[in-house]
């Protein structure tokens, strides 16, 4: 999916290199030196891999046998997968997602969820004292539970942090952001467009949240300039 480094698609190669090698406040580089794929030193030519403009997914650049989600994959899942491989059990078809569930986090979440709870405001995580047991979305704290696969054993939730989606979207989801907008629409307790706008105003950096681990797979995929 591109993972966290996929967030680099929010900028261009030029902007990124400029920030790292010239703008950063502790860097002194008046000559505008940049690392070069080939550089002639007195003794010979030194080579570095080229830095690309685009972060692509693993499957975009190489043939993938199996996809094992998680950043990082949980150790229980690794044990299950390795055990399955060494036991000689029949493996799923090539290209399958292994070591994760097909359900959404919300389907089996350990936090309490009411039937039809609606909200009128989104909060940043530090703006509220989380009660440690109620659904984050019902407390107005953004959570990737509606779109994210199970398999992590709810470690972030148990650590009192809402899900950031590192296990990737469930099989029925083609775009995490679209799915999240639909989940958000169903929990907002406002009818008037202006009131809905007010609620959404508190939703900061939705793209950076919805595509935290998957920007190179998203419909928007990257910035153009």
């Amino acid at each position, binding site marked *: 999916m591109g993972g966290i*480094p996929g967030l680099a698609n929010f900028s261009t190669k030029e*902007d990124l290199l400029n920030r790292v*090698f010239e703008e950063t*406040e502790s860097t002194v580089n008046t000559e505008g030196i*940049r690392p070069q794929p080939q550089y002639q*030193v007195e003794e010979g030519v030194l080579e*570095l891999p080229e830095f690309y403009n685009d972060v692509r997914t693993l499957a975009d650049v190489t043939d993938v046998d199996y996809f094992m989600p998680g950043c*990082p994959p949980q150790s229980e899942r690794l044990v299950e997968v390795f055990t399955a491989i060494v036991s000689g059990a029949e493996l799923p078809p090539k290209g399958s997602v292994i070591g994760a569930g097909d359900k959404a986090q919300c389907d089996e979440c350990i936090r309490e969820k009411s039937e039809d709870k609606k909200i009128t405001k989104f909060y940043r995580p530090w703006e509220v004292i989380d009660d440690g047991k109620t659904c984050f979305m019902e407390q107005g704290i953004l959570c990737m539970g509606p779109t994210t696969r199970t398999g992590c054993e709810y470690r972030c939730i148990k*650590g009192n942090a809402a899900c950031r989606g590192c296990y990737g979207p469930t099989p029925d989801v083609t775009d995490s952001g679209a799915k999240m907008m639909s989940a958000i629409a169903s929990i907002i307790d406002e009818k008037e467009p202006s009131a809905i706008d007010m609620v959404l105003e508190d939703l900061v950096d939705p793209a950076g949240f919805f595509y935290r681990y998957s920007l190179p797979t998203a419909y928007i995929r990257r910035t153009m300039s």
Partner: protein
Amino acid sequence: MKRITIDPITRLEGHGKIEIFLNDDGGVKNVYFQIPELRGFEKFCEGRPVEELPLIVTKICGVCPGCHHMAAGKAVDAVYGVTPTPTATKLRDLFYMAHFIHSHITHFYFLAAPDFVVGPAAPKGERNILGVIGKVGVDIGKEVIKQRRFAQEIQALLGGHQTQVMMNLPGGVRKGMTEEERDDIVEKAKGFVEFGKFSLKIFEDVVLANKEYVDIILNGPYNLKLHSMGLVDDQNMVNFYDGKIRVVDTVGAELYKYDAADYREYVEERVEPWSYLKFPYLKKIGWKGFVDGQDSGVYHATPLSRLNAADGMATPLAHKEYERMYSILGGKPVHATLAMHWARLIELLYSAEHCLELAQDPDIVGKELRTPIKSIVGEGVGTVEAQRGTLTHHYWTDEKGIVSKVNIIVGTTNNNAAINMSIKKAAEGLIKKGVEVSDGILNMIEMAFRAYDPCFSCATHSLPGEMPLIVEIKEADGKLLQRITRN
């Protein structure tokens, strides 16, 4: 001119590449240590809500995510101008000690010990953790793995997850600890202290009792006269979580002692066209090139530099070991690169003792986990000692706490110039006319950087991994003369 390429180098985190150019007479002409990767966290953290950064920067590295999480957490506190509650601060510090314990165990036993316990030029198939277990016995191997696991469990308990750490919110932490959990940590911490003492005993028995090894440490091609950087508390004792940055020069005199937020007055970074990793140096001295000595701006930030830069350790057993190391190595500061391993074990013992102190502190099970946020400053610096050197995160935000700029100077980055020079010196000492460039020799060159416990996944914020090693010795025109493969 002959050319030796070691790519990728092994038993480090992330990737590195060494290019050694030889003179016609077979001696070393020059060495370049290149870092071939970059991700660019400084750029793509822009636009994110600042409280998300502690969750994003953990992905800089799978080995020391806790360091980035802590530096980020402290930077975010500063952005909001908020001081965490005493319980939150102590919980963070406790987590951090467990983080150091796990990392230092990993480095010493898994990455460094193969060179000393098994031997620097031992057959390559034995220079690994299994070779170490073969030498010291299965029971000790099990103990190493158990203690490391306990440290991981404490991190998982306090941080939510040992790798995907989610502990910090501005002003404090997300989760407290019960008395039962505390009691369990106290028991584990007692075990860490015993294990820390035991690890120093192994170092004594295996390394210090072996004249050949002591000779390599003291007189081998592994010495550089560098300035030393480290975080110290108000008594000038080593501290990992908080304090002032102290820099001592090559003869041990204090050069600077400053608030971490003022780092830009003391450190600058330069760019070379042949590496993705920048080269920091002491700003007031300036960049004088890849040279060591009192007039050079090159410094190091390692376990050894931390001990050099401090007056001692804040816990009794570790302090005793601190004094012992300097008395055996001939006083402060020590410039023997391989003594970093010894310093690392003294830090392991300190972490264990401090872990026990914190676990027994009544505040640790307190219920005041967060200081409420009332306003925003819009800029903040967070500095901790990472296992691999002083780590600084600096964030700027708008009035809503949305990140506008990020600057990061990572532990290993501090040591980039020093590592280059250490490798060159080792290569010069080991590759000479008439000496066959064997796998053992190349490993002894790698030992020069391995002492730094470098983490280039961190330093360039690039992806970690370990790969087979291929060494090619070529003529200047590219003609292959010799090929050595590992794995």
